[in-house]
Structure formats: C-alpha cells, structure tokens
C-alpha cells in the first residue's frame, strides 16, 4: 500500500439500483457514442496513457478499442499464460477480454461480464469480427458472477471496481471463482483525499 489515503466504500451509501441505472446510462452512452467526449479519456489514446503495448492491441477490432474506458492495464502485472481461464469483470466493449483471449490461446477460455447491454453488443460484435471463439460474454453483476467455483486462473477488471455498489460482495465473488493460487489483476482508481460521506451519497460523483 502506498502512503496515499485510500477511501474504500465497502457498501455504497446510495440506492443500489439507482446507482446501477446511472452507471448503465453513462456507459450506454460510451458504447453508442464513444467519440462524444466524457469526463474520462477513451479509446486508443487512453490505451496509450495507461500503458497498453501495441502488440496486445493487434487484431482487436477498432469497435472494441474505441469504447475503452479503463483506468489501468491488467496485463501490466503479467501476461496471461496459454490455457488459462479468465474472468473479465466489467468487460465493457471487450478490449481486455479479446486481449486475454489472444494470450491464453485456443486452449484457454475467457468470460467477459458486464451489466450494460449496449456494451455487451459491442463486445460480441468485436469477438465475432476477431473470430475469438474462446471468448464469450454474459450479462451479470459483479456481485453475482455466473461462473463456477474455482474455475478461473485470473480475474481481470479495469476501471469498474470503484463502481460496484457492494465491493465486499464482489470481492467475495472474485475469491469464489478463483482457483487456489489464482490471481486478480485489476485496474482501478484511488483517491488521495478522503471522500466525505456526503459526497459518497452523491450519485453524480460516482459516475463523474
């Protein structure tokens, strides 16, 4: 842990369903109008900011890259191994799932999970375009992963952990689906200034 003060919110002090709908609205817009301009960077420029290597992006359709809205790079902590099983929580337009699919190869499997239908549509289209037959996408919440116990070698996620209404439950799900010895490689955000309780109740601040 660094010397920065972390302000975790294990359970969001806001209505869970209202928060989820606000987040879906935001990322539906990213899926449908990725060039619009948001309060975060997006697309190929963002991949450069957060450290994606060009070779990782080779073969990933532009339709997936342009909707990228991550805050880090799960692969910077170590590339994935041939044959590994991967769960990508909050996969968005599928960029990390497709990169993971290339890394694990035909003997590996990747399950990308997102709650936003429009993002899943973009991800499935990109997987079809890339002929990524070892990658599938499912609609679900991070707190209720549709994955068997101890199936995954790796759980990846990028820029969405901070948006989970119930982080403790999501972490429990990550733990459940990982094999013993399995790892989390996560991109997310951290704050240097403690977030006041009043701000945590302000849904606009969760999404912007």
């Amino acid at each position, binding site marked *: 842990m660094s010397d920065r003060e972390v302000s975790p919110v294990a359970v969001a002090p806001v209505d869970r369903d209202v928060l989820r709908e606000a987040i879906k609205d935001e990322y539906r817009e990213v899926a449908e109008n990725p060039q619009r301009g948001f309060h975060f960077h997006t697309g190929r420029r963002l991949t450069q900011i957060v450290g994606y290597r060009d070779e990782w992006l080779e073969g990933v359709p532009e339709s997936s890259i342009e909707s990228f809205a991550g805050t880090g790079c799960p692969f910077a902590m170590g590339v994935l191994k041939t044959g590994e099983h991967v769960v990508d929580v909050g996969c968005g337009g599928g960029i990390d799932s497709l990169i993971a699919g290339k890394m694990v190869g035909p003997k590996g499997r990747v399950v990308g999970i997102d709650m936003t239908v429009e993002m899943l549509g973009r991800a499935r289209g990109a997987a079809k375009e890339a002929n990524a037959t070892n990658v599938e996408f499912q609609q679900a919440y991070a707190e209720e992963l549709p994955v068997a116990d101890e199936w995954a070698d790796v759980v990846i996620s990028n820029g969405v952990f901070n948006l989970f209404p119930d982080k403790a439950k999501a972490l429990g799900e990550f*733990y459940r689906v990982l094999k013993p010895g399995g790892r989390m490689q996560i991109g997310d955000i951290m704050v240097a200034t403690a977030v006041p309780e009043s701000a945590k109740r302000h849904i606009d601040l969760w999404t912007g």
Partner: protein
Amino acid sequence: MKSAGFAEFQITWSKDVFTGAPQESSADAFGTVGINFFARKPV
C-alpha cells in the same frame, strides 16, 4: 483485501489518467489516480 481472504496485495502502478479529458471531472478534487493492483487467492 485481507478480510476477503486475498494475499500478496500490492498496488503496482499509479498515474493521473484523467487530466485533459474532454469534460471536467470530479477526479481532480479528490486527487484521483488510475492504479493497477494485484492480489492472490492463497493455495
């Protein structure tokens, strides 16, 4: 992380990933940075 059962937690990278975004963000007000973190489920 520890209470969830994970070990080897470490933040491996951090960077300002919001500055220059097309729309104004609340990120700067809280000193928000992008991070990578790692943890492992013990054997």
